């Protein structure tokens, strides 16, 4: 059984990121899109931690804490927005939220 190298971590990270990105672009449910964004963030976190561990530099891990903080704050605000939208439109279909245009 071979060793787990940094490439494994990075592969997993980019796999997660792509899943997240595709989800953001293709899914229509706002909550799912929101979760996909979290997925992308965590993919980035994973890459940071992996590099941090392999390079023996603690900075990467510190950075992750910040990202997690931001993600938590974003989750609070984002969910609040989603609830507000739902109250207004009785729907979470993103295609119906198209006021932001000319």
């Amino acid at each position, binding site marked *: 059984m071979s060793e787990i190298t940094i490439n494994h971590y990075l592969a997993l990270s980019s796999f997660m990121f792509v899943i997240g990105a595709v989800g953001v672009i293709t899914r229509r449910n706002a909550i799912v899109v929101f979760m996909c964004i979290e997925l992308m963030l965590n993919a980035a976190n994973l890459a940071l931690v992996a590099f941090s561990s392999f390079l023996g530099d603690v900075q990467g891990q510190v950075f992750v804490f910040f990202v997690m903080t931001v993600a938590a704050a974003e989750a609070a605000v984002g969910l609040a927005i989603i609830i507000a939208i739902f109250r207004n439109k009785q729907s979470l279909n*993103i295609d119906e939220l198209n006021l*932001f245009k000319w």
Partner: protein
Amino acid sequence: MNDYLFLAIWLPLLGFVFNGIFGSKIKTEKIIGVIASGAVFISFAMFVYAFFQLIEKPVEERSFVVTFFEWIKVGSFRVSFSYLFDQLSLTMALIVTGVGFLIHVYSIGYMHGDKSFWRFFAYLNLFIFMMLNLVMADNFVLMFLGWEGVGLCSYLLIGFWYDRKFEKSTTADAAKKAFIVNRIGDFGFLVGMFLLYYYFGSLNFKDIFGAIGSVEISKDIYTFIGLALFLGAAGKSAQIPLYVWLPDAMAGPTPVSALIHAATMVTAGVYMCARAATIFVLSPIAMTVIAVIGITTAMFAASIGLVQTDIKKVLAYSTISQLGYMFLAIGVGAFASAIFHVMTHAFFKALLFLGAGSVIHAMHEEQNILKYGGLKKYMPTTSKVFLIGSLAIAGFPGFSGFFSKDEILWHSYANGGIIFWVIGVITAALTALYTFRLFTLTFLDKPRFDVSKIHPHESPKVMTMPLIILAFLSIVGGFIGVPEFIFGEGSNKFALWLDPVFEKAKILSFHGHHIEHSHITELILMSIAIIISLSFMYFAYKMYTDKKELAQKIANRYKITYAVLQNKYFVDEMYEAIIVNPIVILSEKFLWKINDVKIIDGFINYLADLVEKISSSVKRMQFGYAQIYAFVILFAVSLSLLFLIINS
């Protein structure tokens, strides 16, 4: 030790600020009037004090500078609020504050009951402040500040009764006319200042006049500077071709006409020419132009004054005519005589205007002298002082106007030539004629108004007292300048007092060769002038009392001349046709409809339209679906990354 003397100039400003801010809250007219007059009186007292200080010193030390603070400091260019106390400026300051104080007091009575009583006195105080800056300044820039300041006050006060009609339009139009015509003159003044700065590197009187003579500058430059400065003077002092604003300025309250448009502001041009005498004497052309314009204006205005029927208009043209005399004196190099006439004119013209105000007051704002008559019975004091003023202006021997006018005529003969003297004497005759026409029509003969309806009454003491003081000055004011051949050497104290100021000008003067005229010539010329003036006074008196049909006959005989005079030579109409209308048409048809609407607005609107057109096609890219935006971002980032990877 004299540093506090700047207060003499700044006190009226305090009066202006006080009355301007609190005036509307103060309900008692007396308080406002006393504060305003008091400020001017204190400043007058300080100038008297300075005068006595100066007179004690030896002649060479009779000038000092009081600096208040530095105003402009750019590179080597320095301008300060500093005031030059010398014989000339002090004489002017004494006239301004002295006559100004009397007119302030008179105004308390005249403006009684006016709804903007406080505003009037605030403006008057501001005017005194500006006028003092003008005459006391020790540099051209500060002088120009005062110059513009008095112009502003003149504008504000002509349009003081902005809701009243005046002739065919409103007083506001008259005010605008005065302001705009003065702009033309100010343009000349500015050009003169620029040239002076360019050639002398300073605008300080001492620097400029000190450098003249030692700096090599061609005569043509002096001519340019002189003519430019004279254009400014002609605007402010109502000379041809810029005199048209002064008759219209009569739309203001009568004390304003007396103070600004007779006694002080309009003489600012004369003062400026006298102050810059050292420059003018270097240019024979400029001097000749001044003399010719002066004498022409004098005669021209006097002839119009002959047929005017509005009491204030007669006096306005008379003022223009007298200012013409002063410029004649400047033009022939008799600067001291010009200032002497400024002083006596301030006395008797202020007196005449205030007397006219008293009459207008009594006649319930009626200004047509054809509707007066016989007022002597109703207004004994006013009629007496008016007679004194008339005698002074007409040159009755012994009165102030006689001495000053005679001095000017004598110098115009001695330095200018016989032609100036002849026209000067003809003008003096016209002066006697219109003055006594005015006096006779107003005070003598029988009333031509409805006696049962209008009951003229003498004005209150607060108005008659200044009149009496001015009348006194009009009688004795001339005795400080008695010609030498009467009382011998040194009797012309006024000239002796002022001469040191013009010493340099005298030395540089192109008249270099001084022709010695005998006193006999002087006496003969004087006698001729006296006889002519007296006979015209008598002629006017007869013509408008006993021989009324004569005036009518003359008018019928010279119908065309009469019509031309009555319409003031159609100068206003000519300006209207040649200058005003073309400008209005050009402004409307080209500047507004083409330049402004089509070119300026058109360009801006075209730009805006262009931006809108471009953006209307580009804005389609904004779909409104957040996911497409996200996709675009992702796509772009991936492409960039790809590009970076390939490149590395």
